[in-house]
């Protein structure tokens, strides 16, 4: 019997390598952004074949979905082609080769793939897998590890995303969108098909984001993926109907507050659990029954993560796009 999983792995990894080489050789940044989206999708496929469906979902939403969009909005500011300066090419090559060799040497010490004695599968992971059904009682163990057992780490990730929003906004600022009364740059009457399809799809995308948000305990999904999908719907709207229309739906001031509120909600859950007599982010004390306390805590912190991620992504997109609209008001699209 042929091992189909092996063939799929080899093909996907070969495609990843080809894509990476193409990205390294190209000068056209627009094509590079598109290829990086393909790279994200291929990585997602590879993660699926490794049975890491949650990671694959995040990679598909972030790597193939939102980061190319953010890069494209940056490209409008910087121009399409890479500068052809070779001043430090040799030094850069040396640096990359040395770093690559160090990484290769580093991987030699890693345990073999699927090694049962590796730290990742012998340390606390066994306990999480065995006790999750009794202590937290949700079908998706990934969510129980991510949101409850490793709640500190996830809190750190939410803070990192919030910090990204603060960083981008304080560096770029959020210019007010196209001035009132000016003709919208995109005449949507010219794009009948796009307008009809997007009007049909955007509500469905928002609905799907909510499904992913609240279904994270039962299947792949959760706050990160849902936030990104929600943001993608708003970004799609702003690409089609203009920044001004999108900013009147998702007001930047509200988004700024929401990005902070999401992290605040997450941290407050920890404080509330401390006040109820537990340790920080120990959800068991949130309710009389420890298991339903865990459920409550996970739902609330996932909601906090989702709100922060969605508003951060939209804010970063607005920050870049409002810059490029101010720089090239006639070509904004």
């Amino acid at each position, binding site marked *: 019997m042929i091992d189909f999983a092996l063939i799929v792995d080899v093909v996907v990894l070969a495609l990843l390598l080809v894509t990476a080489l193409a990205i390294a050789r190209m000068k056209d940044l627009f094509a590079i952004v598109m290829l990086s989206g393909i790279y994200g999708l291929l990585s997602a496929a590879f993660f699926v074949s490794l049975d890491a469906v949650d990671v694959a979902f995040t990679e598909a939403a972030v790597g193939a979905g939102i980061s190319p969009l953010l890069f494209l909005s940056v490209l409008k500011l910087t121009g399409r082609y890479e500068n052809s300066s070779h001043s430090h090419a040799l030094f850069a090559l040396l640096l990359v080769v040395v770093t690559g060799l160090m990484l290769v040497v580093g991987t030699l010490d890693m345990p073999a793939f699927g090694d049962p004695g590796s730290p990742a599968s012998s340390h606390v992971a066994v306990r999480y897998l065995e006790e999750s059904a009794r202590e937290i009682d949700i079908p998706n163990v990934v969510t129980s590890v991510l949101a409850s057992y490793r709640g500190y780490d996830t809190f750190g990730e939410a803070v990192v995303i919030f910090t990204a929003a603060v960083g981008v906004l304080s560096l770029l600022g959020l210019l007010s969108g196209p001035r009132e009364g000016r003709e919208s740059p995109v005449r949507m009457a010219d794009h009948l098909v*796009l307008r009809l399809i997007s009007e049909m799809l955007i509500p469905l995308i928002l609905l799907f984001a909510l499904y992913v948000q609240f279904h994270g305990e039962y299947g792949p999904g959760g706050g990160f993926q849902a936030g990104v999908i929600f943001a993608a719907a708003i970004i799609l709207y702003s690409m089609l109907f203009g920044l001004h229309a999108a900013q009147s739906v998702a007001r930047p001031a509200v988004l700024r507050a929401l990005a902070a509120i999401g992290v605040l909600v997450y941290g407050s859950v920890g404080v509330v659990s401390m006040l109820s007599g537990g340790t920080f982010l120990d959800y068991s004390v949130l309710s009389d029954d420890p298991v339903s306390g865990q459920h409550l805590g996970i739902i609330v912190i996932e909601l906090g993560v989702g709100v922060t991620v969605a508003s951060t992504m939209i804010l970063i997109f607005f920050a870049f796009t409002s810059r490029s609209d101010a720089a090239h008001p006639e070509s904004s699209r």
Partner: protein
Amino acid sequence: MDTVITIASGVFAVFGIVLILSGGLGVMRLPDFYSRMHAAGVTETLAAFFIVLVLMLEVGWSIGLFKLLFIMLFVLITSPTASHALTKAARHGRLRAEGDDPEAGSP
């Protein structure tokens, strides 16, 4: 009944694979952007339809069937729209088709 489903899914799988192959061949061989877009866009939608249909037949009556149905609807709507948007963007960017007369003005 099971054999009917197995045979039907096999036939549909072959349809889908042939369509994807011909689309890929068209993208490789055809001379310019518009005809390549035509090859990819036309075959891709129907191929995705057939392949999801095969998966639906294999899954049988379950929640997975409805999820696949949603995926199929999504692909049927978005894939032609993506082709449309790409081609429109190419036309907007004044990309010429092979054999287009450069003196004839903008398309």
